[in-house]
C-alpha cells in the first residue's frame, strides 16, 4: 500500500464497499471474507486515524463525506470489533469526529449518533438492541459492563471448552462426538479473538481437537494466525498445544523455524548463553522430540547451511540447537520416548552413539580418536558415492561441533599421535576427496601443526615468531586456511605464550571479515563450553571475553 500521508480515495471506497457487503457478517461467506481482510483493514483504519487526528470534525466530514457510513457499518461487525486493536482505532476515529461546539442540527445529529455507537460498543446492552434488562441488574450490583463482559466471556469460553472436550472423554461413544462443522465454526469465530487472553483455554482445546477425521478440521488461516501470535509472543500456549499445532500444520512449523533463524542471525550476539535462551524459548528443541518435527527442522537447517555456504553463525546456531535438543530429550520424563539414536540415520549408529557422549575431561583424546576412526571407516570404506550421503555424514559431525573444538584443543595440549584428530578437522573443513583435496589439506595441516606444537610450551613468544612458523608451510587450499585459523586461535587461547600476544595476533588475522566471523564464533563457542563445564581456568575465560569485546566492537 502506498504510504502517503493522505489516505488514497480509492482505498476508502474499496473498504466502504467491503463493509456494506459484509453487513453484520451473518453468512459463512461474509464471515470468512472479513477474517481474511482483518489485518489490512486495521492498517487502513490506522491510516485514517492518523489523518483525522490533525483535523477538526468539520474538516473531517468535508474530506471524507462517507466516513460516517464506513465507521457505522464497521462498528456493527463483531469480527472487526473483536480483532486485535481495531476497536481502539475505530473509537479514536469516532472521538475525532465528535464536535464540542455543534453549530447546526446536522452536527448535533452526528454527535448523537456517535454517542449511540459508543454506547452500543461499551454498554451492557445486547449487541442488536438496547435492551435494558441486564443493565439495571449490573448497576444495582455496583458493577460496570466491563465486569459483566469479563465474566461473560470467561463463561462462554468455559461452555465451549466443555462442549468441544465432550468427544475426547467418550472415546468410543460416537454419538457424543462433536461434528467437524461445529469445530470449524468455532475456530472461525475465534480467529479475530486469538490475542484476547480470555480465549487461551479455548485455543488450547481446539488445537488438541482431532475428532478422528482424517482431514484437518481447523482452517489453515486459524492455525497460521495462532502460530503468528505465538511467534510474536502475543499469546502464550502450553507446550502440548503448540506441539499439536506444529504437528498438524507444516507451514506453521516451517515458519517457526525460519523465524528462529532470522531472529538469531539478526541480533548482535553477545554470548552463546543468550542464543541458547532464545532457542529454548522458541520451544523448538523440546518440540523436536517428535521425530516428525525433528526431521522438518533438520531439513530447514541443512538448507540454511547450504544457502549461506556454511556460514559460521548458522553453524553455531545448529550446534546450540542440537545441544538443547539432546538436553530436552534427556529431561523428558515421558514413558514412550524414542531413544536418541533413533533420530539419526541408522547407517551411522555407532558414530552417533559416540558423538552423543558428553565430553569429559579425562580420556578425551582417546574418545576423539575413536570418533575419528569410525568416521574414517564410514567415509572411506563404504560406498559413499553421492554428494548427499557425504553431506549427511558431514552434517552429523558438524552439528556436534563441540567435539571439533575439543579436538583442536587436545591436538595442542596432548602431543601424542595427532593424525586421527587432525583427520577429523581435515574432514570437517574439506569433506570431499575426489581430487585429493582432503588428502592435501591433511598434509598442509600437519605442517602447520608441527610448527605450532613446537611453540606450544614456549612461555615467551612474539607475533613475528608465530607468523613465521605459520608461513613455513605452503598452504594452497582455502580449506586449510580455515583449519589453520581454528588451530591458531586454539593455540592462542590454550598456550602460555599465546596468551600474551593473543590480542595483537588476532587483530592481524581478522583483517578480512570472513576470518573475523570465524574467530568470533569460535570464541563464543569456547566461552560457552568453558562455562558449561565449570572449568576454573579464569585466565582463559578472561582472555576470551576480552578478545570478544574487541572483536564485536569492530563489526
Amino acid at each position, binding site marked *: 500500500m502506498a504510504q502517503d500521508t493522505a489516505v488514497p480515495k480509492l482505498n476508502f471506497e474499496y473498504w466502504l464497499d467491503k463493509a456494506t457487503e459484509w453487513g453484520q457478517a451473518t453468512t459463512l461467506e461474509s464471515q470468512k471474507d472479513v477474517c481474511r481482510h482483518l489485518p489490512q483493514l486495521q492498517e487502513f483504519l490506522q491510516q485514517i486515524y492518523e489523518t483525522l487526528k490533525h483535523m477538526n470534525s468539520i474538516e473531517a466530514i468535508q474530506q471524507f463525506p462517507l466516513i460516517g457510513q464506513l465507521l457505522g457499518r464497521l462498528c456493527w461487525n*463483531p*469480527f*472487526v*470489533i*473483536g480483532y486485535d*486493536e481495531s*476497536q*481502539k482505532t475505530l*473509537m*479514536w476515529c*469516532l*472521538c475525532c469526529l*465528535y*464536535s*464540542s*461546539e*455543534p453549530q447546526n442540527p446536522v452536527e448535533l445529529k452526528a*454527535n*448523537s449518533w456517535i*454517542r449511540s455507537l*459508543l*454506547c452500543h*460498543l*461499551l*454498554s451492557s446492552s445486547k*449487541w442488536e438492541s438496547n435492551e435494558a*434488562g*441486564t443493565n*439495571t*441488574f*449490573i*448497576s*444495582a*450490583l*455496583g*458493577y*460496570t*459492563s*466491563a*465486569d*459483566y*463482559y*469479563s*465474566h*461473560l*466471556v*470467561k*463463561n*462462554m*469460553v*468455559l*461452555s*465451549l471448552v466443555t462442549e468441544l472436550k465432550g468427544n475426547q472423554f467418550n472415546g468410543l461413544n460416537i454419538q457424543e462426538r462433536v461434528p467437524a462443522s461445529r469445530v470449524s465454526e468455532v475456530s472461525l*469465530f*475465534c480467529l*479475530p*479473538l486469538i490475542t*484476547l487472553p*480470555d*480465549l487461551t483455554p479455548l485455543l488450547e482445546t481446539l488445537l488438541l481437537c482431532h475428532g478422528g477425521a482424517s482431514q484437518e478440521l481447523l482452517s489453515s488461516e486459524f492455525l497460521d494466525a495462532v502460530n503468528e501470535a505465538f511467534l510474536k509472543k502475543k499469546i502464550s500456549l502450553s507446550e502440548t498445544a503448540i506441539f499439536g499445532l506444529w504437528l498438524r500444520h507444516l507451514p506453521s512449523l516451517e515458519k517457526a523455524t525460519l523465524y528462529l533463524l532470522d531472529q538469531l542471525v539478526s541480533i548482535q550476539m553477545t554470548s552463546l548463553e543468550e542464543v541458547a535462551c532464545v532457542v529454548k524459548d522458541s520451544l523448538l528443541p523440546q518440540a523436536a522430540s517428535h521425530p516428525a518435527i525433528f526431521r522438518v527442522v533438520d531439513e530447514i537447517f541443512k538448507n540454511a547451511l547450504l544457502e549461506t555456504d556454511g556460514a559460521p553463525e548458522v553453524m553455531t546456531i545448529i550446534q546450540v540447537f542440537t545441544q538443547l535438543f539432546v538436553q530436552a530429550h534427556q529431561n523428558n520424563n515421558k514413558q514412550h520416548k524414542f531413544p536418541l539414536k533413533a533420530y539419526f540415520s541408522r547407517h551411522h549408529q555407532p558414530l552417533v552413539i559416540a558423538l552423543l557422549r558428553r565430553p569429559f575431561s579425562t580420556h578425551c583424546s582417546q574418545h576423539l580418536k575413536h570418533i575419528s576412526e569410525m568416521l574414517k571407516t564410514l567415509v572411506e570404506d563404504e560406498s559413499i558415492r553421492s554428494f548427499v550421503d557425504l553431506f549427511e555424514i558431514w552434517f552429523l559431525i558438524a552439528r556436534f561441533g563441540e567435539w571439533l573444538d575439543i579436538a583442536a584443543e587436545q591436538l595442542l595440549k596432548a602431543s601424542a599421535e595427532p593424525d586421527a584428530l587432525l583427520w577429523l578437522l581435515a574432514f570437517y573443513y574439506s569433506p570431499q576427496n575426489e581430487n585429493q583435496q582432503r588428502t592435501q589439506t591433511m598434509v598442509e595441516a600437519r605442517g602447520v601443526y608441527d610448527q605450532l606444537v613446537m611453540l606450544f610450551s614456549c612461555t615467551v613468544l612474539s607475533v613475528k615468531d608465530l607468523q613465521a612458523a605459520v608461513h613455513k608451510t605452503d598452504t594452497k587450499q582455502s580449506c586449510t586456511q580455515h583449519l589453520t585459523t581454528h588451530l591458531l586461535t586454539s593455540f592462542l587461547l590454550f598456550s602460555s605464550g599465546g596468551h600474551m600476544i593473543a590480542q595483537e595476533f588476532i587483530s592481524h588475522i581478522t583483517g578480512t571479515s570472513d576470518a573475523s566471523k570465524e574467530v568470533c564464533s569460535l570464541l563464543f563457542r569456547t566461552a560457552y563450553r568453558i562455562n558449561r563445564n565449570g572449568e576454573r581456568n579464569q585466565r582463559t575465560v578472561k582472555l576470551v571475553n576480552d578478545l570478544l569485546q574487541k572483536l564485536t566492537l569492530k563489526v
Partner: protein
Amino acid sequence: MEALLEQVAQLPGLLAVSRSALVRAWDAPTLGRALEWARYFQHLHGRFRARPRLRAALGRRLRQGQPGSPLGFRHLGRCAALLGLALLENRALPPAACRRLLQSLLRPGAAAEAPSLALLARRKAASRLLAPAPRPAGSPAALEPQVRAEAQMLLARLREEEEEAEPGGGRAGEARERLRWVAGLLEQLPQPRALRVVAAALQQQRGGDEEGLRGRAGGGHVAGPLLSWLLESQERFSAFCLLLPGSLLASLAAHYSQLRPPYLDLLTAWGSRLLYDPLQGRWHNSCLGEAELSWEELRERFDCLCRGPALLRGQTRAALELLKVQDGDFHICGLSVWTDLLMEVEKSLRKEEEQ
C-alpha cells in the same frame, strides 16, 4: 481523617449526579474535576486496601444515608469506570463536556487507572461471536453463560458485603436489611431469570464451600440471604422448584439443609393433588392450568433426590415411606400416589445397580 471521610462521603452524590439530568449544567472543566475526583478515590482505594480498620471506616461512611443500593469500599476502586461509563450513557451531558470525556477515556495516553475500554469493546464483541447457537426460547442451556456470569457477579457482591460486614452487633436488624437489599437487587431481573441466577449462584457457592474457601461457617452472608429470599414467599419457592431441573434441585438440597424440608413439603403437596385415572391407568393433575408438576416430573424429582448423597437419600426414602403408610400402606398400584412413586423409584434404582 475526618476530612478524608467527608471527601469519601461525596462519592454517592457524585455517582447519582452523573446519572441524572443535572449534568446538563456541566462544562469541560467541571467534567475534568469530576474525573479527577474519580482518580483520587481510586488512589484512596489503592492506599487503604490493605488496612482493614481504615477500610471499614470508609465503607461505613459510604453506606450512611443510602436510599438506593449501598456502596461499599470496593466501589472506590471502580470509580473511574463507574463514573466514566455512567457519564457516557447520560444523554444530558453537553457536547463540550462530552468531548472532554471522550478524550480522556478513549484517546491514547489515557492513564492506566482509566478502564481499558478497548478491552471492554473487544470482550463485548467476543461475547457476540462466541454466543451459543440460538435455541428455542426459554431453553436453559442457551442462557447458561449469561446466567453464570450474572450469578458470579451476584456472589462477588455478596462476598464483598460479607468481608466488610461488621462482626457482631445488630444481627437481626442487619439480616433483615440485607434481605431487603438482596430482594431489591433481584427485582431488577425478570422472575424466571432471577430464579436461575440464584440457582447458579447457590450451585457455585456450594462448590466454594466444599473446597473450604470460605472460612466462616456456611458462608452465612453469602448463601444465607439468597436462601432466605427463596423461601420468603411460597409462590416464589414453588416457581423455583417448577422451573429448575430435578438434578440441580437435588444437588442444592443435598448441600443446603434449609432447602430440604420445604422442597419435600412442596413435592408432597403436589403429589397429594394427583388423581388416578383407572381407565388410562395413570396419575394426572386434578386442576388444569395451575402451576404443578405432572406425575412424570414428580417421579423424576424423587428419582434425583434418591440418587443423591446418603443423608438425602435416606431422608427422602423415609419421607416417602411415611407418606405411604399414612396413605394406607397399600402394596398395589393405583391406590396411593406414594406407593406408586416409591415402587417406581426403587425399580429405577435397582436397574441402575444391575448395569
